């Protein structure tokens, strides 16, 4: 569906995107990266808002830059809150008109999508008075109003509370199930994982990995997994662990033991028995490799 070939974008001396080669298929795809990874630049290139400095990006086989026919087939939900002093309904209806809907149709459709995103009862309130979650919904509504085939959502869950986040997640999954192709960016791995298993990992303007999240996790599993165990007698626990087949490294620090294992599943299964056998009191067990930063750290080291 989307293909980027040698895609680069620079702003003066700053390289925001560097030689990206990636294919994004149908369904929901998560664009993952830490802040400053180049996700927004990549999304703007994908949506034809920026001209590539080098390389190309195509959507449905056609270049997206300056291609107004393709722009009709996409919907963009920007990260920024760019609102005017209008009611939710007027805001979405006006953007629908800019997308090419006739006046009456724009209003009817705006009501429909606002209802769909749960803003039906609030459609006559000023957008400026909306809460953060409501603003995210109205942005989603304006992206959906002309019924595009592909939706690009830039950090749609950022800044929302857990309840709103869950509802937005469900909404995005439902849109995906309704046949929309969605590319959403985020810097939170577990959020993206709860929506889709297809991800593109970006770091410092490059694509580090793309594909199924399980595959990326499997790649990670080739790398020793680090687990920090806070306990009263780390040395005792280290002695018990040293002969375990999948433990490849041990590091003693004050009040804690850091274990490196190449089979986390086996290790976590064995821990309760070891604790029971040694009588060590464990306060905390932390997997150091479970966040996005660790994923990037590992993949960067690997590349």
């Amino acid at each position, binding site marked *: 569906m989307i293909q980027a070939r040698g895609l680069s974008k620079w702003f003066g001396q*700053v390289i925001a995107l560097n030689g990206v080669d990636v294919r994004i298929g149908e369904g929901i795809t998560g664009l993952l990266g830490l802040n400053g990874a180049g996700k927004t630049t990549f999304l703007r290139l994908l949506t034809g808002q920026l001209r590539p400095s080098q390389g190309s990006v195509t959507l449905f086989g056609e270049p997206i830059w300056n291609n107004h026919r393709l722009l009709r087939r996409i919907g963009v939900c*920007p990260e920024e809150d760019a609102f005017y002093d209008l009611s939710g309904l007027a805001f979405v209806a006006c953007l629908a008109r800019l997308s*090419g809907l006739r006046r009456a149709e724009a209003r009817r459709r705006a009501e429909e999508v606002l209802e769909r995103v749960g803003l039906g009862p609030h459609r006559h309130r000023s957008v400026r008075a909306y809460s953060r979650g409501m603003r995210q919904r109205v942005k989603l509504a304006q992206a959906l109003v002309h019924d595009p085939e592909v939706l690009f959502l830039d950090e749609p869950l950022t800044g929302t509370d857990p309840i709103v986040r869950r509802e937005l997640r469900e909404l995005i999954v439902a849109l995906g199930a309704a046949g929309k192709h969605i590319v959403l960016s985020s810097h939170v791995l577990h959020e993206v994982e709860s929506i889709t298993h297809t991800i593109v990992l970006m770091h410092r303007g490059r694509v580090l990995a793309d594909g199924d999240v399980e595959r990326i996790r499997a790649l990670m599993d080739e790398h020793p997994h680090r687990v920090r165990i806070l306990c009263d007698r780390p040395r005792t626990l280290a002695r018990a662990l040293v002969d375990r087949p999948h433990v490849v490294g041990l590091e003693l620090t004050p009040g804690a033991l850091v274990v490196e294992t190449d089979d986390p599943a086996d290790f976590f299964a064995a821990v309760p028995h070891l604790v029971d056998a040694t009588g060590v009191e464990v306060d905390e067990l932390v997997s150091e490799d479970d966040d996005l930063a660790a994923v990037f750290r590992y993949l960067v080291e690997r590349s």
Partner: protein
Amino acid sequence: MAIAERGYRRWEGRLRGRALRWWIIARWGVRLSGQSKWLRRLVLAAWLPLLYWVLAFFAIGQVTDPETIGAVEDTWQFALLKAQFGGALADAFVRDPASFRPTIWATLFYFYLYTTQVWVMLVTAVVGPRLISADLSAHALGLYFARPITRLDYVAGKLGVVAFWIGAVTLGPVTALYGLSILFSPSLEALSQTIFVWPRAAGACAVVMVGAGAPVLALSSLTRNPRFLGFAWAGLWVLSHVASTVLSLAIFRIGGAEGRDWTGLVSFFRNLLAVAFRFLEVETKLAPAARLSHRASRWMERYSYEHDWRWSLCLLLVGAALSLWVVARRVGRAAEEGAQ
């Protein structure tokens, strides 16, 4: 707030072409800017002086009615006409309306346009500054350019907003005044004799819309904080006028009237008025009256421009083109900056 459990409904309609997208941007902008109470008050205030002109044309209609000719000298209508044009021209007009109607109408419409310039300055100072800077500061450009909209559509739409409000204090009242003037006229003969007035006045208004609208958009595109931009814009108008006057006086003191004919080009007001003066052919129309009336000859002297009006038109159009180029460049750059 629970999200209603309703499946997504597809939309089966057909999207329209993008030919009129600029129009939608303009309409949206007019609606948003019209929320300003100050702007609405300004436009209302700009229409109030029209009452005097309506009265003047009502009087003209009355005194030129063939049924009342010869019996108007003691009426208030004639007194008003005399006060406006002087006794000689008023007398000549009443005796021979057909010959002097184009003179009277062209002169009155020019005077009206003359008075509207201050309103143009004030209205553009209120509307213009926020038009683009607000989009820049709110990062709203993405909302436009993620749709099938070009920079040209965007710039034309924004120009449409400021042109609408300039038109609201120039073209709108001029059109209403012309319509009423025809209604007050004793016969349709007046229409055939003054048919040139409305299109020429409308042409002059169009030059004002573009000539004053484009530069204020350029200023708006140069900043994300428009707080003092309105004052800066009004200051530019006033300063350019003061500079033109000071230069003209200085050159006059040094070397007499020779060599100061270009100083009118420095003033924004004078450039706009020089074009309106020529468009309405005031000089040509006033020439026969100037032979009869001292006041008309004084007007000729006072309102005629020493510089060639074509330079003024050229300056305004080149200025507008440059301004729109600046806007397009700034918008393009801002869209790129937004991605960083």
